[in-house]
C-alpha cells in the first residue's frame, strides 16, 4: 500500500470542533434559562390547580371582559396602523421631498419613548384637567379612562411597526413598475391594488403580525390611560396584573397563558413567513 498521507483540509473559516460544541451548548443553555424557562413557567403555574382551575379562571366575568376588550382594541388599532403604514410608505418611497429623513426619525420615535411616558402624554393632553380633555368630557366624549384613550395609547406604541417593514421593501422595489402601469393608463388605486400591493403583501403581513402582537400585549401605556376599570377598560395584560396583585395566581397565569399562546402563534406565523418569503421581506430589520 502506498503510504500517501493526505491530511484532511483544515477549515479556516470556522472554529475548532470542541469550541463549536461549547458555543452551541452555551447558546442553547442561555436560551433555555432566559427564554424557555419563563414561557414554561406560565403554563406550569396556570395548571397549578389542573384544567378545572383554568376553565374556572377563564369563565370569570372580568377575564372574559378583558379578552373581549383586548380583541376589540387590536381589531381597531391594527387596521388603522396598517392604513397609516401604507400611506406613510407610499409618500416616503414614491416621492422626493424635503426633510424626509427627519420624518422617518419622527415615525421611529415611539420606539424610543417609554410606554409609561406615552401614557403620561395622553393623560396630560386628554385628561380631565387639561383644556382639551375638559371640553371633550363636557361634551360626553371622554378619552382618558375610556375606550378611545386605549386605542390612542395602542396606536402610539405600535406606531412604527408597519411603516418600518414597508419602507425598506418599497425602496428596494423602486418606482419603475408603478410608472409603467401609469403609462399604460392605470388609475392611482388600480396601480396600488394590482402592482404595489402584490409586491408588498408579505412584508405588510409581517408588519401587521408584529403590530398585532404588540397591540394585544401592551401594558404600560394602556395601564395608565385605561385606569384599569374592571369589566370596562381592563385589557388582558392589565387584568393579569390585577389578578396577580390579588394573589389569584391561577387566574393571572391562565390569562397570561392565553397571551403566551397568542405569542407562540405569532412566532410560528412569523417563522413561516421568514422561511417561505424571505426574499420579499426587508433584508435587514431591527424589530
Amino acid at each position, binding site marked *: 500500500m502506498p503510504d500517501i498521507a493526505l491530511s484532511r483540509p483544515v477549515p479556516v473559516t470556522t472554529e475548532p470542533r470542541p469550541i463549536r460544541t461549547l458555543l452551541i451548548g452555551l447558546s442553547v443553555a442561555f436560551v433555555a434559562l432566559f427564554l424557555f424557562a419563563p414561557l414554561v413557567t406560565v403554563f406550569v403555574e396556570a395548571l397549578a390547580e389542573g384544567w378545572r382551575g383554568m376553565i374556572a379562571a377563564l369563565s370569570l366575568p372580568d377575564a372574559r371582559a378583558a379578552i373581549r376588550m383586548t380583541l376589540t382594541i387590536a381589531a381597531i388599532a391594527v387596521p388603522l396602523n396598517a392604513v397609516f403604514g401604507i400611506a406613510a410608505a407610499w409618500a416616503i418611497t414614491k416621492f422626493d421631498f424635503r426633510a424626509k429623513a427627519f420624518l422617518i426619525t419622527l415615525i421611529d420615535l415611539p420606539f424610543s419613548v417609554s410606554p409609561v411616558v406615552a401614557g403620561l402624554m395622553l393623560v396630560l393632553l386628554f385628561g380631565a384637567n387639561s383644556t382639551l380633555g375638559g371640553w371633550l368630557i363636557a361634551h360626553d366624549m371622554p378619552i382618558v379612562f375610556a375606550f378611545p384613550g386605549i386605542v390612542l395609547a395602542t396606536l402610539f406604541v405600535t406606531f412604527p411597526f408597519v411603516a418600518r417593514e414597508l419602507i425598506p421593501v418599497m425602496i428596494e422595489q423602486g418606482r419603475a413598475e408603478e410608472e409603467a402601469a401609469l403609462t399604460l393608463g392605470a388609475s392611482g388605486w388600480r396601480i396600488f391594488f394590482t402592482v404595489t400591493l402584490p409586491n408588498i403583501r408579505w412584508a405588510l403581513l409581517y408588519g401587521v403580525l408584529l403590530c398585532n402582537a404588540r397591540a394585544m400585549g401592551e401594558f404600560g401605556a394602556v395601564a395608565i390611560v385605561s385606569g384599569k376599570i374592571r369589566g370596562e377598560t381592563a385589557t388582558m*395584560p392589565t387584568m393579569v396584573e390585577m389578578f396577580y396583585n390579588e394573589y389569584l395566581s391561577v387566574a393571572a397565569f391562565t390569562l397570561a397563558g392565553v397571551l403566551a399562546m397568542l405569542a407562540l402563534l405569532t412566532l410560528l406565523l412569523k417563522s413561516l413567513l421568514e422561511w417561505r418569503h424571505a426574499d420579499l421581506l426587508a433584508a435587514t430589520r431591527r424589530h
Partner: protein
Amino acid sequence: MRAGILRSPSPLPGFGLSFGIMMAVLSIVVLLPIGALLGRGLMIGPGDLWGMVNSRRIWAALSLSFRAALIASAFNLVFGLLLAWVLVRYRFWGRRIIDAAVDLPFALPTAVAGIALTALYAPNGTFGQALAPLGLKVAYTEVGIWVALVFIGLPFVVRTVQPVIEELEPELEEVSATLGARRAFTLRRVVLPTLAPALLTGFALALARSVGEYGSVIFIAGNIPGLTEIAPLLIVIRLEEYNYDAAAAIGIAMLVISFAMLLAINAIQTWSRRRIGLA
C-alpha cells in the same frame, strides 16, 4: 397637488392623500401628545422643573433605570453576539427553534414575562430555590431588574447583528488565514471590527428599550423606594396621586434621555455607513 421647491415632480399619483394621512395620524398620535408633555414642562418653567426632578428619590430611580439598562444591555451584547454567531455559522439540531425563540421577548407581553420571571426567581420558585443556597437573591432585588431587562433586550442585539454576520465574506477570513493569522486573531482583528457598528446599534436599541421598560420589571423589582424603584414606576405613582406636574417633570427627564439615545443610534448608523463607504 403642488410640485415645487419642497417636492421634486413625480408622475405617480396619491402624494396629497398619502402625505395627508401620514401627517394627520402622526400629528394626532405622536406629535400632539409629545407637545402636551413639553408644553406642560414650559408652563411649569425650567426652575420649578429642576426643583421637582432634583430629589433623592427621583435621582435614585433615574440612575437605577439607567444603570440596570446598561448592565443588562452589556450582558446582551456578549450573549447576543454569541447567539447570532452560532445561529448563522453553525448547523445543529434545533437551530431553527432557537432562532424563532429569540423573538419571544418581542411577542410575549411584558406583563406576562414579568409575572413568569417573578414566579421563577421568587424565594419559593424553581430558580429562586436553586440560587438560595448560593446566597443569591434575584427576585425583589436589583439583580431581578437585570434579569427582566436581559429578557427584554436580547432580540435587539441578535436581530441587528445576525444579518451582518450573514453578509460577511468568508474570503476575508480565508485571506487572513493564508497570511498566517490564527483563528482567534482573525476573529478579533478581521471579524469583530466589521461587526462593531451593528453591535453598537443593537446595544443602543436594547438600552433605549430597557431604560423605559415597565411591565416586565415592576413585578420582579419589589419596588422599594430608593432601592429598586424604577423611574417609569415613579411616574405611575405620581399619576395615581394626581400630581401631574411631578409626573410630567420625570416624564420630561426620561424623554430627554430617549432623545439623546435616538441621536446616538442615528450617529452610530451614519458612522457605520461611512465606514463601509456607502455615504
